């Protein structure tokens, strides 16, 4: 499958389903069936077994033809985390059941991993899954930080199936039907006033054994696929010079000379350098990946971004002086997406605090860099070889 073949296929799709004439969902289903959804996926599962890099060719052609897309940011958890896991660990039946409506966006997915008592130490999770008399599983527990839980049809879920073995060994990975009557979703309001996330309470939720992904007790390993894909998704955005938050701040600086002070000027220059260095770091990483020389630098992207975002938004509030004392809206809302640009400085300042927590805290990322990149030895651990039920909580 080369570039020319792909273009031919795209043109065939467009001819059979002219975007301006057919329903969006029909088009997306047809695109999936033509293997043009994610070309590196296997035949019959929305792909053609082609190199991943060729996806860009397809996307460009379709965009040029005015074809609708599947609104990837809205269904990011399904695309970025559930799909790679289902592809790797799912049975053929599971793959055919779930991947098509996942990709078209007909079925939204969410993630039931974190718990109030298991944050950075995710493997300590306490949600229990116990087999019932009919050979299904019954799940009880509480999950938290679940975005899209209120719109999701399915969830990827990890739960403890054996408390008598060390914590990493007794976990199993399931797909949970969010319409089960035992699933209760409650919005989780954040310091910004919004509720981007939810708490999810699971009470005797039934999961058929056929909705298990991977073997019983292998859930931690399966979850690594999910989590590795999360980190890639967060770290990999390309930005032009003065893209992102630095651009907002620099524009305010240029347009409003009355706000400038000597102190703020020095800080702005420092932030500008930091932003440009971070941009160049990301650019170098992308060039390395493109050249087939993946370096360890990827681990640092999220860490650097979080710090810069927090510094820039704190600066912006100070720069705005009196305006910085205001806030745009405290109303409890449930936004589908986080939008730093559509809100005011105070929102950005508060929301950026989450950048160093969500998707792996900066503390955990520093541990990872120190151990996996620099090769520094781990700390002495007391939690690895002890049965989960004997751990202190």
């Amino acid at each position, binding site marked *: 499958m080369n570039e020319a073949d792909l273009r031919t296929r795209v043109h065939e799709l467009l001819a059979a389903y002219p975007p301006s004439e057919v329903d969006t969902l029909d088009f997306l289903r047809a695109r999936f069936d033509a293997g043009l959804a994610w070309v590196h996926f296997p035949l019959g599962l929305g792909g053609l077994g082609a190199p991943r890099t060729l996806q860009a060719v397809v996307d460009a052609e379709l965009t040029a033809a005015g074809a609708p897309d599947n609104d990837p940011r809205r269904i990011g958890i399904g695309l970025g985390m559930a799909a790679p896991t289902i592809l790797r660990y799912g049975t053929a039946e599971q793959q055919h059941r779930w991947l098509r409506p996942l990709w078209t966006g007909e079925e939204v997915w969410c993630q039931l991993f974190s718990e109030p008592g298991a944050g950075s130490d995710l493997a300590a999770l306490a949600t229990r899954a116990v087999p019932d008399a009919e050979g299904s599983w019954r799940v009880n527990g509480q999950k938290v930080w679940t975005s899209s839980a209120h719109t999701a049809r399915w969830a990827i879920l990890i739960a403890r199936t054996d408390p008598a073995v060390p914590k990493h060994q007794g976990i199993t990975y399931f797909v949970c039907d969010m319409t089960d009557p035992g699933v209760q979703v409650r919005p989780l309001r954040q*310091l910004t006033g919004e509720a981007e996330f939810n708490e999810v309470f699971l009470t005797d939720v039934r999961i058929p054994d056929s909705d298990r992904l991977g073997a019983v007790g292998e859930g931690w390993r399966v979850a690594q696929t999910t989590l590795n894909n999360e980190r890639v998704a967060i770290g990999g955005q390309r930005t032009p010079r003065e893209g992102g938050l630095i651009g907002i701040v620099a524009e305010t600086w240029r347009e409003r000379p009355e706000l400038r002070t000597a102190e703020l000027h020095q800080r702005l220059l420092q932030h500008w350098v930091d932003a440009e260095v971070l941009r160049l770091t990301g650019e170098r990483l992308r060039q390395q990946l493109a050249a087939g020389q993946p370096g360890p630098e990827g681990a640092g992207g999220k860490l650097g971004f979080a710090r810069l975002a927090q510094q820039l938004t*704190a600066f912006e509030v*100070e720069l705005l002086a009196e305006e910085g004392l205001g806030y745009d809206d405290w109303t409890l809302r449930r936004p589908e997406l986080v939008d730093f640009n559509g809100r005011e400085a105070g929102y950005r300042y*508060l929301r950026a605090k989450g950048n160093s927590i969500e998707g792996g805290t900066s503390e955990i990322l520093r541990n990872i860099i120190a151990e996996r990149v620099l090769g520094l030895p781990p700390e002495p651990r*007391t939690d690895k070889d002890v049965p989960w039920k004997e751990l202190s909580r």
Partner: protein
Amino acid sequence: MNLLYSEIEEELRASVRDLLHDRSPIEAVLARVSADQGYDPALWRALAVELGVAGLQDPAAGGSLREVAVVLEELGRSLAPTPFLGSAVLATAALGGDERLASGERTGTLVLPFSGGAPSVRETGGRLTGRVTSVADALTADLLVVPVVGGALWVVERGFTVTPRTSLDQTRPLADVVLDDAPGQLVTEDPAVLEHALLTGAGLLASEQLGIAEWCLTTTVEYLRERRQFNRPLGSFQALKHRLADLWLEVVGARAAARAAADALASEAADAPLLVAVAASHCGTVAVRAAEECIQLHGGIGMTWEHPAHLYLKRAKADQLALGTPGHHRARLAELANLPA
């Protein structure tokens, strides 16, 4: 220079803290914020009228700015929703004391943007006209102390309207004040009075910032002692311990600096402006850092509305802008300490 707390000051602190603990626990503050309820008049009555803290600025009545600072530490620690800063600090300082305010029966404020700036209200024949945005403690004020162009101070008791603003700091909401030909009484023509009131405000605000920082440090330490991950208390992880040790050192410095500013203001020391600039620069920074560390080290829970940490972050950030940013105070220092650009 006395940087300690006297016995009387410690007793005052204990009374204020007990009262706030009973009448305004942080859960109640959060509930008021969530219900958009603003200041608590009953709390103000208990604090100002019954405990008498609104009159502490008056040396003749046995008070002292050192004691006012102690009250502000406790108000910072509790975020109790009261107009103490506007009324008992700023307006009182601008008026050189006022019986109505001292009794707590009425409250006032100083009508300037909380972030500072020169007066813009115009006065003609004893009547005042202008719009002043982002005024602290104006929503409940009976009595406005209004600086006018040139720096004279007037008192206005009617002929004004106050409109609330949506504020970053939810426990000290700001408001816009419109004066439309409002009748005023002249307080003073001397612009030095306004300047001194702002100096007093900035110097004492450092004590509020100290209180914020202490709450954040203490709360974080307690949380990390209890919260376990990886079969250990989080507080046993060395990277976190070192950060908290550094933060502790900054808070210790904040206490010394805030005390020095309060003492210098109380004793009208010649270096009071310099010590105010030092305290405002240091404490404004420390409070924000403490609140940011508090949020980060609480992990996800610190990001939630139901945990009070965010109220401290919002107060700390707003206080950093209030009455001059740390950068502004360091710029003042350039003159005061003879360190020219």
